[in-house]
């Protein structure tokens, strides 16, 4: 049983990073992005490439260093793509932004599908773990700690307040001389970069990558995590990620329930939006927190 649980921990770490990074984009900045899987993919393939093609010599001698390098590489690559995607898209309003980011996410996946150098349609296999399972777990949760700490500081700083201002009322923010565009792009890029980090970690956990790991449905799954946990709440992101990661494993013991796992997720999304739009974190929150998502319908 313990071994089973140990198997899940790295995946949990990855999902927490994915969820909180999307939380920065969707929850705090109020940008509805449906392309998160794209940045996840970029980080994964970039990280795997660094390990397999960039510095393969380090696999034996300095594996932990290599893991760190590929994680950082994944972040940087995803961040760069985040800029490329964010700059044109972030001019768009609410639902158009959603669809545009969805489009980009899918295009990224299709690019990897055709990119023979990283396996293309057959996938990229044989990625080494670069650490024992125990070390890996510590490393990944270390990454989680760094991520959450960074986000917390970001949110509680003046930067964070500006971001929330942009979310609440873009026009008011602009009239207060907040550089709306900058904050939008920056939040988007940070969120994307950390999705890339999750991707690199994923590559070394799963040890095999395939474009089918990065579909639109994965973006929706991450969205489910923060919706369930509560948009605009870091605690909510962690809670949502934990539930979404662990639930399938519990369901595995009953075959019928495992069958309907995705169905249950869909239902949860609908039910949460209808009855508890604040998510589970809303249950714990006493004061009216920043979960009120007024969408500023922006015209660039």
């Amino acid at each position, binding site marked *: 049983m313990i071994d089973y649980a140990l198997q899940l921990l790295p995946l949990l770490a990855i999902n927490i990073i994915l969820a909180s990074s999307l939380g920065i984009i969707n929850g705090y900045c109020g940008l*509805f992005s449906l392309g998160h899987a794209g940045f996840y993919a970029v980080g994964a393939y970039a990280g795997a490439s660094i390990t397999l093609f960039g510095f393969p010599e380090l696999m034996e001698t300095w594996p932990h260093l290599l893991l760190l390098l590929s994680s950082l590489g994944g972040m940087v690559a995803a961040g760069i793509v985040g800029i490329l995607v964010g700059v*044109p*898209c972030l*001019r*768009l309003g*609410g*639902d*158009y932004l*959603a*669809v*545009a980011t*969805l*489009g*980009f996410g*899918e*295009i990224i996946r*299709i*690019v990897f*599908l*055709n990119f023979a150098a990283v396996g293309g*349609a057959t996938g990229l296999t044989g990625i080494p773990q670069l650490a024992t399972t125990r070390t890996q777990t510590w490393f990944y949760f270390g990454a989680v700690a760094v991520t959450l700490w960074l986000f917390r500081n970001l949110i509680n700083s003046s930067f964070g307040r500006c971001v929330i201002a942009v979310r609440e009322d873009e026009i008011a923010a602009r009239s207060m001389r907040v550089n709306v565009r900058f904050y939008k792009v920056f939040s988007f890029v940070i969120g994307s970069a950390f999705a890339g980090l999750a991707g690199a970690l994923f590559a070394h956990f799963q040890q095999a990558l395939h474009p089918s790991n990065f579909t*639109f*449905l994965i973006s*929706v799954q991450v*969205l*489910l995590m923060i*919706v369930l946990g509560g948009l605009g709440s870091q605690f909510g992101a962690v809670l949502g990620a934990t539930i979404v990661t662990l639930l399938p494993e519990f369901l595995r013991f009953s075959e019928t329930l495992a*069958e*309907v796992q*995705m*169905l249950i*997720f*869909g*239902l*949860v*999304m*609908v039910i949460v*939006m*209808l009855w508890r*739009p604040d998510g589970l974190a809303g249950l714990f929150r006493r004061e009216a927190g920043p979960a009120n*998502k*007024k*969408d500023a*319908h922006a015209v660039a």
Partner: protein
Amino acid sequence: MSSIDPGELLQYLINGLALGSIYALIALGYTMVYGILKLINFAHGEFYMAGGIFGVLAIGTLGLHPALGVLAVLVACGALAMLVERLAYRPLRNKNRIAPLITALGVSIVLMEGFRVVFGAQPRSFPQLFENTVYDLGEWFPSLEGVIVQQTQIVIFLVMLVLMSALSYIVLKTKMGRAMRALSFDFDASRLMGVPIDRVIAFTFFLGASLAGIAGILVGMYFNNVEPYMGQLAGLKAFTAAVLGGIGVIPGAVLGALALGVCESLVVGYGQSSYRDAIAFGILILMLTTRPWGLLGKPQREKV
């Protein structure tokens, strides 16, 4: 100078128009719902899938006469859409724009997985409704020898034209249609003028979904392949078509869909099939970032 074989090109165009007609039937539903509610109903693709599956059941398993089967599918998909609207979208109608989107995504998953659990994930073949005769254009134009048009393709195109005309009639000439246009023009004013909003919206959903359901049957016939996950990609592409043509504009949906079908066919023909889907998303992003009101739309003002 160019080495493009006119016969090959024509073949791709023909295939593209058939494909586009199917996208058109799905796109119409998207565009109508968006026109009135300003909601991108992500679950719309699943009504198309439902049409295919219901079609297999009605005509294949239950052995109904095709005409009766089509009618049954039409009603079933429409009813399903009305149910979804009533349960999942109506309660959120006055909230912000993001909540219904998330709900729509959830509904999409529920439908997709629900059908998979009930009907199984294996693709099913569609019963052959008529002889799929193949017409070689070489019989009339010798230089076009080898270019073929399938009976199925002709049927799909004609059905699309007929349904589009019927839809135009409903929207332009009937009272309900007028109400739909009024709502899409100015929601609040229409409400104040006493337009029965709930009924009109329910009707819109019914109409859109039944069109999509028929598309599902047509696709089942054309590709002989129906499975619970087929609505995802088709839905997204149909949405692209609607955006391309002008979201909220009915003729735009058809124009955009036909254009998209042809583009896709050309990309697969002259390029590689693995880029097939990229063309749709590329067009989507291009349109959204440069001309979000589409080819036939007008900036900021939407018309049905």
